C-alpha cells in the first residue's frame, strides 16, 4: 500500500473536539466580562496606591484572558476545518480503493486488456490525496506557529502582572483589544505564517479550491457524492487548472507549466517575487551551472539509463512555468527563470522533470500514448516527496 493511503485521524473526533473548544470558550468568556464589570464598580469606591496596582494587574490579566478566548476560537475553527479535510481525505482514499478493486474486476472480465482505463483516475486521486495531506500539515503548522508566538507574549504579560505592574508597559505598547488580538492570530494563521502559503479564511474555500478538490469532494464528504466521472473531471480540473496547475499538452513536446508558486495568488507577494527574480537574473550559462551545482548538492540523479541528461535554459518560459521536458533524443530538460526561485524550487523542478525523462525513455522518447493524467501524478508525487525531504532537512530554504 502506498503512503498516501495511510490512515489519518478520524474527522468526526476532530469535529467533536472543535465543538468542545467552542463550549470551553463559551464557559470561559463570561468571566472576563464579570471581572471587568466588577472592577469598574470597585474603582468607584476604592482609591489609593493599592487600588491603582490592582487596576494594573487586572488590566494585564484581562488582556491575557482575551487572548485565551481568541485562541479557543481559533482552535475551534481550525479543528472544524481540519475535521472536514480529514473526512474528505477519507472519502478520496475509499474512492482510490474502489478504483483499484474495479481495476481487478474489470481485468478479470477483459482478460487484462483494458486495465489501463482506470490508471488515470487512480493516479489523479493519488495526487489530490497527497496535496490534501500536505494541506493538513501546513494548516496545523501555521496555526501552532501563530498561536505559540502569542503565547510567548502572554507569558511575558502574566510575568509582569505577577510583579505588580512590571509588565504593564508590554500591554500598553501592544495597544491591542482582545478581538484585535484574535484578528491578528487569524491573520497570521490564514495569510501564510507557515511555509509561505496563502490559506483562505473561509473554511469552504479552504476545503475546496485551496487544495484543488473543489466542491464535488466537499459534497462527497458531506454525504452528497456526484457520479464518479463528474467528480473525477472536476477534481482534475481544480487540481490542474483552478489551483494553478496547467497540465499542458504532451503532444507539444512540453509538459507545460508546473505550478509550485502557491503563494503567487497574492498580488503583492507576486510583485515582490518578480522583483526578486529580476535581481537574481543571470546569464544562461550561469543558470545552467547553478542547476548542475544544485543537483550535485542535493544528490539529484541527472542520468537516465546511465547517460547524462542535458540541461538547457529557456528565457521565454513564463515564471510560473519552471520546467519542461521535450520529447526526442538526447534527453533534455528545459529550465525557465521560475525554476531558479530558490534551491527548493530548482531541486523540485529537476526531480519532477527527471520522472518525465524516464517516462520518455520507456516510451521511445515520444509522448504519444502517454496522456497527461498518467504522466503527471508520479512526477508530482516524486516532487512532493523530495520537497518534504528538503523541508525536513533544510527548513524550506
Amino acid at each position: 500500500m502506498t503512503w498516501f493511503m495511510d490512515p489519518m485521524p478520524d474527522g468526526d473526533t476532530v469535529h467533536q473536539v472543535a465543538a468542545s473548544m467552542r463550549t470551553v470558550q463559551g464557559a470561559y468568556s463570561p468571566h472576563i466580562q464579570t471581572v471587568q464589570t466588577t472592577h469598574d464598580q470597585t474603582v468607584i469606591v476604592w482609591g489609593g496606591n493599592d487600588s491603582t496596582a490592582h487596576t494594573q494587574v487586572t488590566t494585564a490579566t484581562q488582556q491575557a484572558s482575551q487572548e485565551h478566548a481568541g485562541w479557543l476560537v481559533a482552535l475551534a475553527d481550525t479543528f472544524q476545518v481540519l475535521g472536514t479535510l480529514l473526512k474528505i481525505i477519507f472519502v478520496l482514499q475509499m474512492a482510490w480503493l474502489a478504483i483499484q478493486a474495479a481495476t481487478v474486476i474489470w481485468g478479470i472480465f477483459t482478460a487484462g486488456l483494458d486495465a489501463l482505463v482506470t490508471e488515470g483516475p487512480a493516479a489523479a486521486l493519488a495526487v489530490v490525496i497527497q496535496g490534501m495531506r500536505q494541506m493538513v500539515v501546513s494548516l496545523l503548522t501555521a496555526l501552532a506557529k501563530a498561536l505559540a508566538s502569542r503565547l510567548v507574549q502572554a507569558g511575558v504579560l502574566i510575568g509582569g502582572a505577577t510583579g505588580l505592574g512590571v509588565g504593564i508597559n508590554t500591554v500598553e505598547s501592544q495597544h491591542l483589544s482582545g478581538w484585535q488580538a484574535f484578528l491578528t492570530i487569524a491573520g497570521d494563521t490564514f495569510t501564510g505564517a507557515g511555509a509561505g502559503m496563502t490559506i483562505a479564511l473561509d473554511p469552504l474555500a479552504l476545503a475546496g479550491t485551496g487544495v484543488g478538490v473543489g466542491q464535488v469532494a466537499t459534497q462527497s464528504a458531506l454525504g452528497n457524492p456526484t457520479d464518479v466521472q463528474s467528480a473525477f473531471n472536476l477534481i482534475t480540473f481544480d487540481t490542474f487548472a483552478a489551483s494553478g496547475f496547467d497540465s499542458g499538452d504532451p503532444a507539444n513536446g512540453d509538459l507545460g507549466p508546473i505550478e509550485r508558486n502557491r503563494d503567487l495568488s497574492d498580488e503583492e507577494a507576486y510583485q515582490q517575487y518578480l522583483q526578486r527574480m529580476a535581481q537574481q537574473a543571470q546569464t544562461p550559462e550561469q543558470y545552467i551551472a547553478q542547476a548542475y551545482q544544485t543537483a550535485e548538492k542535493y544528490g539529484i540523479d541527472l542520468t537516465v539509463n546511465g547517460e547524462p541528461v542535458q540541461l538547457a535554459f529557456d528565457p521565454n518560459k513564463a515564471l510560473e512555468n519552471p520546467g519542461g521536458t521535450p520529447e526526442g533524443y538526447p534527453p533534455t530538460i528545459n529550465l525557465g527563470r521560475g525554476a531558479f526561485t530558490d534551491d527548493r524550487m530548482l531541486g523540485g523542478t529537476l526531480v519532477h522533470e527527471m520522472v518525465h525523462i524516464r517516462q520518455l525513455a520507456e516510451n521511445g522518447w515520444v509522448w504519444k500514448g502517454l496522456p497527461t493524467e498518467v504522466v503527471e501524478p508520479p512526477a508530482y508525487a516524486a516532487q512532493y516527496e523530495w520537497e518534504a525531504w528538503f523541508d525536513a532537512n533544510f527548513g524550506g530554504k
Partner: protein
Amino acid sequence: MSSGEIKLTVPEQLDAMSQAHRAHGEAAHAAAEQVNSGHQALQGTTNWSGPGFDDISGFLNQFVSHLHAFGNLKQTLATSVTQAKENSVNANTTNAQNLTTQG
C-alpha cells in the same frame, strides 16, 4: 455575593472583586482541564503524529500549562484583594477607635 451591583462599602466591593478573580481563576483551571481532555481525544485517534500534528500538540500542552499558571495567578490576585479588604477593615476600625478615644 453578587458582582452585578455596586456595594455601598469598600469591604463589600472588594469581596465581590475577590470572588470575581477567584471564579475566573477556577474557570481557567477548568478550561485547562477541558483543553487537555480534547487534546487526549485527538491523540487517541489514529496517526495523530508527524509534522503539523506534533506542532499543534506542542501548542496544546503549552496552552494547558499556561491556563493553569494563569488560574494560579488569579487565585493569588483574589487572595491579595481579600487581604486589601481586611487591611481596609482594620484601618477603619483603628480610625474609629481613635475617634472614640479623642471624643
